[in-house]
């Protein structure tokens, strides 16, 4: 099944040591380079990864959301409008509000739309994305219409004599991105491996059987959609701060589909690994392609990459699975069926 094995033992795919080394390396990147290009690519990839994790979580319950960029837009607008009206000193409060409001909207929309489920759900989420865009375009008093809102960087943070100033360089943005990604990754990772993660998957794998074993399908679909809404809202708020503007064109249908593409290319079987690999690969590729003089080449290449990944990687498991195979081959680890994570932990104690 393309959604992935129900419980995949993450240790067997990416060992904790490797994760640790990667995080350590990422943490010291600004010591070696403060180049705009490198840092902004990494920052954007990280932010998109957070949105992609949300998409994969919704996918875990068997739903295919085509409107995730709309929640980024909501988060972005909430934080931009609040800072504009309350003043810059309320930046972090507005940031918090962006996730909360985005989550509340996801909850309300989910209650209505997830009743239909399946293909109807995908169609309505596309429509929802369009609604958000049209409202943003036309509600000029609040959103400033097509011109959009300029977003100022967060105010400097003073810790003793040490000042973190967001308007001088990208390094603070970079570290805050790491913080955001690590926090959401830990949350999603834990959600995915505990009891509720299994319930999410059971809803997708066999809804009828799950329901007869006591799973309230609607409840878990809405929970997943809401969690994704909260974190995607944060991602949107931070993204607009980073690019310092929000307008109705930034989060359009193409961005929603891009989130889906990152998930597919990275591999939806691993919620964190797949999201990070997918968003980094595709964002860097898109960044490179947008510098070429050919218009629209990004659309063509992304479309082709997704189709090729689906056709030629086994059962559409994405790049993350390829990495797992490589790892096992290099270290000759047996490719056997692993004991599920939680259960293995119990035996060790």
């Amino acid at each position: 099944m393309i959604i992935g094995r129900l419980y995949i033992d993450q240790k067997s795919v990416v060992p904790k040591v490797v994760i640790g080394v990667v995080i350590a390396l990422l943490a010291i990147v600004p010591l070696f380079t403060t180049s705009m290009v490198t840092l902004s690519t990494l920052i954007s990839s990280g932010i998109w990864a957070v949105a992609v994790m949300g998409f994969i979580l919704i996918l875990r319950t068997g739903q295919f959301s085509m409107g995730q960029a709309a929640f980024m837009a909501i988060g972005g607008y909430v934080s931009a409008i609040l800072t504009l009206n309350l003043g810059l000193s309320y930046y972090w409060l507005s940031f918090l509000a962006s996730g909360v409001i985005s989550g509340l909207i996801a909850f309300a929309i989910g209650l209505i739309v997830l009743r239909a489920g399946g293909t109807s759900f995908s169609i309505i989420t596309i429509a929802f994305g369009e609604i958000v865009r049209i409202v943003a375009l036309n509600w000029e008093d609040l959103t400033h219409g097509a011109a959009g809102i300029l977003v100022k960087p967060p105010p400097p943070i003073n810790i003793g004599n040490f000042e973190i100033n967001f308007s001088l360089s990208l390094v603070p943005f970079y570290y805050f991105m790491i913080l955001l990604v690590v926090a959401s990754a830990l949350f999603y990772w834990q959600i995915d491996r505990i009891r509720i993660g299994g319930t999410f998957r059971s809803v997708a794998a066999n809804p009828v059987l799950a329901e007869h074993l006591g799973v309230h399908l609607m409840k878990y679909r809405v929970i997943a959609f809401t969690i994704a809404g909260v974190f995607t809202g944060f991602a949107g708020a931070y993204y607009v701060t980073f690019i310092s503007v929000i307008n109705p064109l930034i989060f359009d249908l193409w961005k929603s589909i891009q989130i889906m593409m990152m998930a597919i290319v990275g591999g939806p079987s691993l919620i964190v690994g797949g999201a990070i690999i997918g968003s980094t690969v595709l964002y860097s590729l898109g960044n490179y392609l947008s510098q070429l003089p050919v218009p629209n080449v990004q659309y063509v290449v992304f479309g082709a990459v997704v189709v090729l990944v689906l056709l030629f990687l086994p059962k559409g498991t994405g790049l993350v699975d390829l990495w797992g195979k490589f790892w096992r081959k290099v270290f000759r680890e047996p490719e056997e069926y692993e004991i599920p994570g939680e259960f293995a932990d119990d035996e060790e104690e």
Partner: protein
Amino acid sequence: MPPAGIWIDGLVQSCIYMTMAFGMVLVFSILGILNWTHGQFYMLGAFVVYYAVTAAGIPFPLSLLVSGVIVGALGMLVEKFIIERLTGPGYGLLAVTAATMALIFFFEGAAGMAFGLMAKGMATTLPGVLDMGVFSISYQKIAVIIFTLIVMVAMYIVLNRTKIGKAIRATAQQPDAASLYGVNVGWVSLIVMGIGCALAAMAGGIMGPVQSVDPFMGRIPMIMSLLAIVIGGLGSLTGAIVGGIILGLLNSVIAYKISYLSEVVLFVLVIAILLIRPQGLFGAASK
């Protein structure tokens, strides 16, 4: 009461959404998946007609057929080399959905690279206005309505009177049983995908003179016909037709009443319908 012109515009939109939704549901009933690229076949059809008329000088009605054949063949290629390979055992719905959604941008980008991003007009095709006294209607819009009538009648005959049509309906109802009776399900899927894409292409071609031709022209018809399917009930051909009519007229009338945010009102109406009947107007009631 909105003036007649609004109703005619609505009717023209209805015709297009109907044709598109019909093709999508036809494909859905056999392949069990939605072809999300349908709107892009509409766009490609319009481009074929545009170049056939302006560059090759082929007469407009004939170039419609040409676009149907070319884009229908393209649809068959997509079915054969992508959709069929992603629907084997072990694949969920996800693979095909993701692939056809990715193709939306592949085709849009390719069209943009090949034909340029500028909108192309072909307003000189079928010029003139029919004056009926109370209201007037352009020949281009009449052509759309007549085209849709022809398509619907033709589809009715094909589905009910021909051998292929019977095979299609048998496969839609009972794929396993149909294959037992000697119907080649793979072949039926291919034919159906060809028909669906040809319909979309011809709809795009016939709309070419009414609107302008550009790589992104397929998006709104795509979203609208998807919503028509949701209203009508996924999998119901009657539902697709009724949903298309409702949506086209509603869209036009709402746009007349409230100039902006009309799409929002429309979307909210669709969601309201879903709240009352999650399976759509003509969908099979669950349980």
